[in-house]
């Protein structure tokens, strides 16, 4: 598991090794089964990450394999994080050490939950993601660098010449990208800075006055 602190401030580049969890439609019940939600803090959730899948695979799940310990970039396939809105899912991944997720597509609530924690979710087309997964599986020691400004990930095999670097283009919408690059991915401050606008909005909603203002 990663010793690096939780995301904080601007996030221009993320570096580390890759762990691949393949499969479409991996739901948040699989990312963290409901029994791990019985808690009043997010501490200790790392052990719940993919708990049932890991149990089933008896040590051969990517999160249990020795070569992936310390990996910080998770590469997945389509519709990752569908189902329950539980933020415990990205919390468990983050506490295991994940700092970025790259995949073909993400469920919306999961994407938003990750963003709120400073964990970028970047997407790539089917061929790109398969190639990236293949590269990471062939050389699990490879070091990857994910550049949020260019939405590009590149690999550097240990001891290999610079020209052996492989690059893949990914996508991240301008909004989330700007939020992560500027360190403003935590929305609370922004939301609290529009007090007048908030009062104006509330004033034009008839239900806020119990439908009594004419």
């Amino acid at each position, binding site marked *: 598991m990663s010793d690096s602190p939780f995301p904080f401030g601007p996030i221009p580049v993320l570096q580390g090794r890759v762990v691949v969890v393949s499969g479409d439609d991996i739901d948040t*019940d699989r990312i963290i089964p409901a029994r791990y*939600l019985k808690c009043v803090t997010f501490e200790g959730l790392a052990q719940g990450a993919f708990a049932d899948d890991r149990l089933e695979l008896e040590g051969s799940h990517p999160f249990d394999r020795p070569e992936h310990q310390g990996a910080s970039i998770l590469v997945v396939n389509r519709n990752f994080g569908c189902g329950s*809105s539980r933020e415990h899912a990205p919390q468990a991944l983050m506490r295991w050490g994940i700092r970025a997720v790259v995949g073909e597509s993400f469920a919306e*609530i999961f994407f938003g939950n990750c963003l709120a924690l400073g964990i970028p979710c970047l997407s790539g087309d089917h061929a790109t993601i398969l190639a990236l997964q293949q590269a990471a599986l062939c050389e699990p020691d490879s070091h990857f660098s994910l550049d949020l400004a260019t939405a590009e990930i590149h690999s550097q095999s240990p001891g290999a010449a610079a020209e052996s670097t492989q690059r893949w283009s990914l996508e991240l919408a301008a909004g989330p990208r700007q939020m992560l690059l500027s360190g403003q991915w935590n*929305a609370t401050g922004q939301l609290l800075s529009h007090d007048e606008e908030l009062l104006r909005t509330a004033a034009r909603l008839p*239900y806020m006055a*119990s439908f009594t203002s004419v």
Partner: protein
Amino acid sequence: MGLEGTVSAGTLYDKVWDMHRVAELPGGSTQLFIGLHLIHEVTSPQAFAALKELGLGVRHPERTVATVDHIVPTTSQVRPFADSLAEEMLSTLEGNCAEHGITLHGLGSGRQGIVHVIAPELGLSQPGMTVACGDSHTSTHGAFGAIAFGIGTSQVRDVLASQSLAMNKLKVRRILVEGRLQPGVFAKDLILHVIRSLGVKGGVGYAYEFAGSCIDALSMEERMTLCNMAIEGGARCGYVNPDATTFAYIKGRPFAPEGMAWDQAVSWWSSLASGPDAVFDDEVRFDAGTIAPTVTWGITPGQGIGVDETVPTPEQMAAEERPIAEEAYRYMDLAPGTPILGLPVDVCFIGSCTNGRLSDLRAAAAVARGRQVAAGIKAFVVPGSEQVAALARAEGLDRLFQEAGFEWREPGCSMCLAMNPDRLEGRQISASSSNRNFKGRQGSASGRTLLMSPAMVAAAAVTGHVSDVRELLENLCVFASAPAETRPVAMSPSLLP
């Protein structure tokens, strides 16, 4: 009424979005005002802790409503709970609500229940509102013509602190359903059919507007079932335009407007429906009359088939669906080509925010009446709320179910996600009226779930295997018309606000 923004054109989604827009945020998202914030014990404790850490209070405690549902036992609800973690979660919620002046509809209040059951029955969920809750099935409240969506805990913190959220606008897909559902076919079958057709990721990036003659004829409880599972199709919200059915349901409920305010409310609500000028980003049509009782065979809610169909073969599906189908064959231990009809089950669960309302219990009771749960089957009924339980008892449904061999339980989320003691054991297979058949969902890492309507669950309970409910109902015309709407008759005067 001279209300700003009430005459804007477009879809209901556009109108409600525009009226709730507070500001455009630097990242390109929109700050959206939240009209109703529902909280529960699972996704709120960390949000309150974060507030405390930031030195912030709750901006609109009067627009925040709490209940306890996920972790409550359904046998004995005596405090303290036997499960100390569950007890800690509830007492934390109680402490947070007391500290911040938030109303908690707790156990024994007469109003406790699954958050998506109680907010509608209390009249809190209303057309034109934005509704947020740290639960993906918040889409349920879209049945009222609200824009309602699930959020994570960081967003719960943001709504508590600011009564608003940073959101990105969705596209709108109109799902037009024409015709009538056949007898024995319910809203649950309709939504399982929609998800089967459009896929579990087909709705990502969209809000689903359900419209057409079939939807117009649905009761509010049926519309709630429909919108509840929009998220299972990937759509973060689903909604139905408010109409006379909506208004009739809300009228007289504890938090409904009254007198002059009622007329004002109906006038405003009516102005919100998608107009003839509304432009949709996409439109899909379904013929209600062709839909059969639908059952899931796999591990996603999109893996559904008509009860008279067989488990699809890889050749019958798109190439991209094959890997997860292969996984489902293995996990479910079902070979391609196997008929779903006749598949033996172990546990039958009637309840959840999808199908735990009075009309659901009535539909199941119509099948259970005069029959017996088959030998070796564990069958239980968990009403969605204390109010549903009271109304059902007043009709004698509790006795009817018990005489048929079902267990009658206390309200809560129960075995939908098994955060309480109700769960599958080992490789047990359940017939379940809930919303998710994910691997491990019902509390056993190898447990298996078949999603279906409450009437179909009752049919499975009395036969011991997946059955076609249409063959068990002599008098199918019971279901030919929408069941009478649940009225809040059991509310005692002392419970009124």
